[in-house]
């Protein structure tokens, strides 16, 4: 199926990507092509390096001293690991939502406004905050107390606040690292609906340990597992429907049926 993807319209493309922690090869030889304005899910057993792969897309792994990578991660045709690329710039274009909601201990308003402010946003901040909170389907719940601390919201609301915060920087891609793992089912559904709406404007890559979620909410799915060296490898990548109904690789089938059937 990869042959059918049109290269010039890729959101992110990795070439021969290997990820290391010190001497340990955590992820091996990944060639992934992410389609813009779609939701791409990364699934696989725990420890297979899903999060490491996701974090390498906006250079969040830079903060792990022992981390290094080989190969290329292309964004608009440019390798984001090239020496002349500023990781700060990369993260402005490729935002991230984390596993546990992590609002700043500031007001709801400031949580949304801060990222935009440091990135030089000069227009009407009130409008931006309202617009992104609406986009994140949070506006109606918080519009009367924007001055309240972000920490006072419920878990699901906090995670939508974190999504709004990411949107306010106006990224092209949003990386989501198991965004619903700390949430209850209702809050999870809200986030999934939100992802579906956002995918009309943004490219979303989501790491999830929840296969139903991947099946429900994503357009494309990449299945990762560990090889005999405990290094993560990408086994299969394709349209979600195909991966879940007609997997080509035996390992994918085992994983899916093992949990699904």
């Amino acid at each position, binding site marked *: 199926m990869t042959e059918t993807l049109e290269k010039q319209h890729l959101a992110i493309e990795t070439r021969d990507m290997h990820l290391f922690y010190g001497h340990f090869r955590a992820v091996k030889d990944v060639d992934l092509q992410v389609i813009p304005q779609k939701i791409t899910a990364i699934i696989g057993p725990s420890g297979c390096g899903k999060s490491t792969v996701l974090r390498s897309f906006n250079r969040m792994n830079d*903060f792990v001293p022992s981390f290094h990578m080989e190969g290329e991660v292309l964004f608009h045709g440019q390798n984001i690991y090239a020496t002349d690329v500023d990781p700060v710039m990369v*993260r402005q274009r490729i935002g991230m939502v*984390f596993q546990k909601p992590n609002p*700043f201990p500031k007001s709801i308003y400031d949580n949304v406004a801060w990222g935009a402010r*440091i*990135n030089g946003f000069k227009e009407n901040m009130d409008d931006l905050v309202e617009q992104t909170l609406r986009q994140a389907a949070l506006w109606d719940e918080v519009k009367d107390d924007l001055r309240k601390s972000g920490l006072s919201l419920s878990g699901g609301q906090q995670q939508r606040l*974190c999504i709004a*915060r990411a949107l306010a*920087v106006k990224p092209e891609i949003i990386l989501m690292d198991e965004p619903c793992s700390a949430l209850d089912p209702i809050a999870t559904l809200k986030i999934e609906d939100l992802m579906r709406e956002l995918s009309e404007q943004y490219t979303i890559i989501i790491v999830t340990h929840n296969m139903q979620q991947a099946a429900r909410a994503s357009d494309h799915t990449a299945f990762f597992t560990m090889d005999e060296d405990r290094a993560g490898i990408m086994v299969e990548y394709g349209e979600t429907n195909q991966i879940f109904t007609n997997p080509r690789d035996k390992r994918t089938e085992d994983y899916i049926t093992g949990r699904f059937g």
Partner: protein
Amino acid sequence: MENQIVKQQVIRMESAEQLVIHKLRKRPRLGETFIQGFLFFCGAVSIFTTIGIVFELGKESLLFFQMPGVTLVEFLTKTEWQPTIGKFGVLSLINATLMTTLFAMLVALPLGLGAAIYLSEYATPRARSILKPVLEVLAGVPTVVYGFFALTTMTPLLRAIFGEQVQVYNTLSAGLVMGIMILPLVCSMSEDALSAVPRSLREAAYGLGATRLETAVQVVVPAALSGIIAAFILGVSRAVGETMIVALAAGSGPNFTFDPFQAAETMTGYIARISGGDVSYDTPDYNSIFAIGLLLFTSTLLLNVISRRLVARFREVYE
């Protein structure tokens, strides 16, 4: 006959059971109780210490305020302090204490916080594991050595910069050196607070495209603010109670002045000077030590309590 035997057996079993029950019954363990009592006494020694401090300071201070010519109002509002000739205005001593404390915090707060931010947000773990203990050596140097340092290095340095208007004993020199002494305290407490801020907050900021500085100053520092303020307050308390540096370098003799180049005696400096000589019991000099000691004790205690409250609140948020 058979019945008899059964009966006997039953009785025997019952008595065995009773024996077991008897063995399991709680017994007074005299040794254990005695030890626990002794250990409680050890813990209570600290209570006796506090009671001793409060009682002695209070008792002698009462005697001080009962002396002819001493009133609380004069004590707290007048600026001239000469107990032997009946002048009891403690403001000159308080003023000198506040001056040296101010200069100390002007050094310790920015440098301590800056160093804490560097160690927590910039330094590699290896660099931090070397730099932090070295900085803490500064905290282990006895304060009398800092007094020597103030007198032999800082004062001549100030005189070289500002000229002869700097007196040999002056509050600026003592304050600046005191700041160096307090720096490791402020640094290490602030660093603890900064390091306790969860990594997820930093990642959130980086994920939005913030630089390291923006993350450190606009996200991590505000999140650790109560811990940093606690460090600052504890630093102030340390500066107010510090004796040897001011006794050596700030000057002896009360002097109500705002000139940092002039000699002026602090509360602690006064206590050290008066008690260093041959002071006889129940004289104005002797009793005044206790009145000033009480002032010192209550003010530092207040600062310490506030600081500890802030740290506790900070811990509640993040632990």
